[in-house]
């Protein structure tokens, strides 16, 4: 009996139970939707369960590492990420017109995925180093650190990932106290440079944005995704069509319905009530993450926690926004619910860091 208790203690020592329950609940919802979205395909569901277990193990491992150790990894990870991204640019495999994957002999990897964690780590580490003398040039340095990988990913091209990584870096800048004036200036600059962006965008990217403005222009081409997912959500109504009864999903009108568009399946089958519950669940997890962030004891941990939290939110917002037709279509999965191992691992890695921050002994204030 004592043995079991010991093991339990050992297993849960660095777990944040509140956050864990939130995560597990969302995962359960994800499996239920996935079962329906794949047309009752148990093997896909089993695969996803394995993905989740792997991710949970990784989360547990990370949660057990004290942040000081993780902090040491920031610079090497960042440098490795940059090297790999350059490698992609030079030797990457072209897939669907984009160069995103790097074959490293044993397996193919997508270095931009690594950057999703490396960037907040690196920037948080950077601000931690310069904590006492934070001046404008420090923010500029951080911006350079951020823009280097963002530009590399942008030219793969992978607009979605680039924007998400840029966002995660920007959150660090913001939380580190970037002055409001600069933020306002940045916003103006971004707005002003939109035409420039437009001109350097790839055709398919432009089409996505045009399509967002008027999906009916190209109902069978680029507009198809948006139209079909809007139909799925809208036809779900308040109470939804019921589990496994979504015609849009079950009859394959929805594109990529187990990955990026899984929210449309959920929304069609569970309606506005389901959406309310799902948003609430996400909100609970985000709220817990913010509490952890607020209680973090060092600049590094605060920044990393805040960035992870807001990035998690950004994934949710961008995914739901694109599926419901208010954002252009970028390849962003719905965290903890979309099918796929990579994003699951990335997400839980982040939560592992949050748990580590929360559960390891904090530095005492003087």
């Amino acid at each position: 009996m004592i043995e079991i208790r010991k093991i339990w203690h050992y297993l849960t020592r660095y777990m944040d139970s509140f956050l864990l329950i939130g995560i597990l609940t969302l995962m359960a919802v994800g499996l239920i939707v996935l079962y329906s979205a794949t047309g009752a395909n148990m093997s896909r569901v089993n695969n996803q369960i394995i993905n989740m277990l792997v991710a949970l193990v990784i989360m547990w491992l990370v949660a057990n590492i004290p942040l000081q150790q993780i902090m040491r990894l920031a610079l090497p990870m960042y440098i490795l990420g940059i090297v790999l991204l350059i490698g992609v640019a030079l030797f990457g495999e072209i897939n669907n017109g984009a160069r995103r994957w790097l074959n490293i002999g044993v397996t193919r990897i997508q270095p931009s995925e690594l950057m999703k964690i490396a960037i907040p780590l690196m920037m948080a580490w950077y601000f931690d180093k310069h904590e006492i003398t934070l001046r404008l040039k420090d923010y500029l340095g951080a911006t350079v650190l951020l823009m280097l990988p963002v530009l590399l990913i942008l030219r793969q091209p992978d607009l979605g990932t680039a924007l998400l990584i840029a966002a995660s870096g920007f959150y660090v800048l913001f939380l580190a106290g970037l002055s409001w004036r600069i933020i306002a200036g940045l916003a103006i600059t971004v707005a002003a440079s939109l035409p420039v962006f437009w001109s350097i965008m790839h055709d398919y990217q432009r089409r996505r944005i045009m399509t967002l403005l008027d999906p009916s222009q190209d109902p069978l081409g680029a507009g198809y995704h948006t139209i079909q997912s809007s139909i799925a959500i809208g036809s779900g109504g308040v109470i939804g069509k019921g589990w496994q009864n979504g015609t849009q999903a079950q009859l394959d009108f929805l594109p990529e319905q187990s990955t990026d568009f899984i929210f449309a399946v959920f929304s069609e089958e569970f309606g506005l009530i389901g959406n309310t519950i799902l948003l609430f669940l996400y909100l609970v997890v985000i709220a817990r993450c913010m509490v952890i962030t607020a209680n973090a004891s060092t600049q590094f941990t605060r920044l990393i926690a805040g960035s992870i939290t807001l990035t998690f939110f950004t994934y949710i917002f961008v995914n739901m926004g694109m599926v419901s037709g208010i954002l252009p279509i970028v390849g962003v999965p719905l965290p903890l619910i979309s099918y796929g191992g990579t994003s699951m691992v990335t997400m839980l890695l982040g939560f592992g860091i949050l748990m580590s921050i929360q559960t390891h002994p904090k530095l005492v204030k003087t």
Partner: protein
Amino acid sequence: MKRHVELRNHPVELHKFRFRLAVSACFVLVLFLILYVRFYYLQVSQQEHYHTLAEANRISISPLVPNRGLIYDRNGRALAQNYSAYTLEVIPSKIQNLESTLDELATIIEITATDRQRFKKLLKESKRFNSLPIRSRLTDVEIATFAANRYRFPGIEIKARVLRQYPEKEVVSHIIGYISRINDQDLEQLERNEELNNYRGSQHIGKIGIEQSYEKQLHGVTGFEEVETDAAGRSIRVLSRTPSIPGNNLILSIDLGLQEAAEKAFGDRRGALVALDPNNGEVLAFVSKPGYDNNLFIGGIDQENWNLLNNSIDRPLNNRALRGVYPPGSTFKPFMALAALELGKRTPEYSMSDPGYFSLPGVERRYRDWKPGGHGRVDLHKSLVVSCDTYYYSLANDLGIDNIHSFIGQFGLGKKTGIDVEGEVSGLLPSSAWKMSQYKQKWYAGDTISVAIGQGYNLATPLQLAFATMVIANNGKAYLPRLVKQIQNSDTGDVEDIPEKLLYSLNLKPRNLEIVKNALVDVTRPGGTAAKAAINASYTFAGKTGTSQVIGIKQGERYNEKSINERHRDHAMFIAYAPADNPKIALAVLVENTGTGGSTAAPIARQVFDYYLLGKSPEATVAKLNEPAEEPVHDHL
């Protein structure tokens, strides 16, 4: 575990950070609210709209094509039937490079050059999003091969189709006609008739013959199915179903055995034969030689076969029985004789001396009899038996063209009979009014002379001649000629008879009829022009030979069969009915470019009678066909 780390937290900074975090939290809440508003808009405000779109997405109405009615002969032998087969169909609009795709397809499934040609022709005539067959009657092996390679051929599919087949091909092609793919004109026609809905999903429509004229009966009523479909257009399940009603079966009055006998009797000669039942107008045989394989047209004919048929000098696509117009020649004489008696221009006893020619008073031109030197004394009876021309030259002059026109018109010459297939032509029975309106010329007495012996402006179809013969055979009753005898409901099997239709009854004096009919019987007896064809017949039959002139022969020249291009030789004609005392069959025979009626046309009639009345097959009498001409070569004007 405890480590001392330099403490860098300042309360001010922490406060600043927490403020920033609170701003972030607000940011999160605001954006979530935006999402929620969007969900509310989609799922509450616009729910109905999107619900409709989702339903429209998943439900498609697909037509259920009815099975086309079958066609049988009067004894239940199949003339048009259906079979199920798998066809390989191509939707051109879904294929980028059609040529290379077909080449690739040909590597796994046999596609002959003919298939390819046919498909090309079809492609030209069809819309690009139509599904066009490239191969039909796929074997099981071919189906399996294609199924395994299907992913390589988007836009190409195997379809289960009910296809039409005409087992008798050439023998009945001019009766049955054919169905073929619906083209733009057909669609316009259907739209005008407000029948387009009933043709959703139908690929074929009757183009000619019975298939065309009985299209409404044969096609049936299209049913509909509400099907739930997935995004790829595949049917998932049926939501509701209105079954199609198959087309009605047709039972023709045609006796296929008789038709075959007639075909056989013709051998490879060109011509036509129409046999009617004089008691009700039923068409017993309807031959136009040569026929064609009507199966070729069903899926769209290939260019090569089309050229072969369309450019053939034998003109196999020409329905001679229905649309071929020929001078009736001497087969016109019985009607002239009846006119003479009925209108009181001749008595049976009247006789004249035939010097071998006739001249109009005060005109030098001579209208020659076919027999140089003439027939001696000729009365009405003899004029028919030996087919004396001179007798009719003088008779015509006495009758005048307008009497001829109005009297003989009563036998159906010069107008359509109204048979139940489309495309019939009316021939020509001239009159002075006709000539005036057509040529703005007055009618000359000389014009009448050639009309008297069925030449000149005179033109008739074999069907019209058969019709006229029927009217004589049954003493003046004109029945509507009908190819379809019964209509059968293919669901219940109930058979509905189409009643005979008496168009009118001529009020002819029995005595006059008897005189003419007796003479027609004697035509087939020794001394008559068709005597040879009637040798050893166990029944009596009545008939009249004729020769239909193809080219004019100048005054003073004589017609010499041997020296004339085969295609310019005269056509042989024969009208007849049997048995003479109680006619069961009346017919007209035309044999193109073979000279006189007695030698080639009458023997064909004999074989048809033998088959119909005695059940004898043509082989038994075929030997007689090649014997020399009985009726002497006709003299031309």
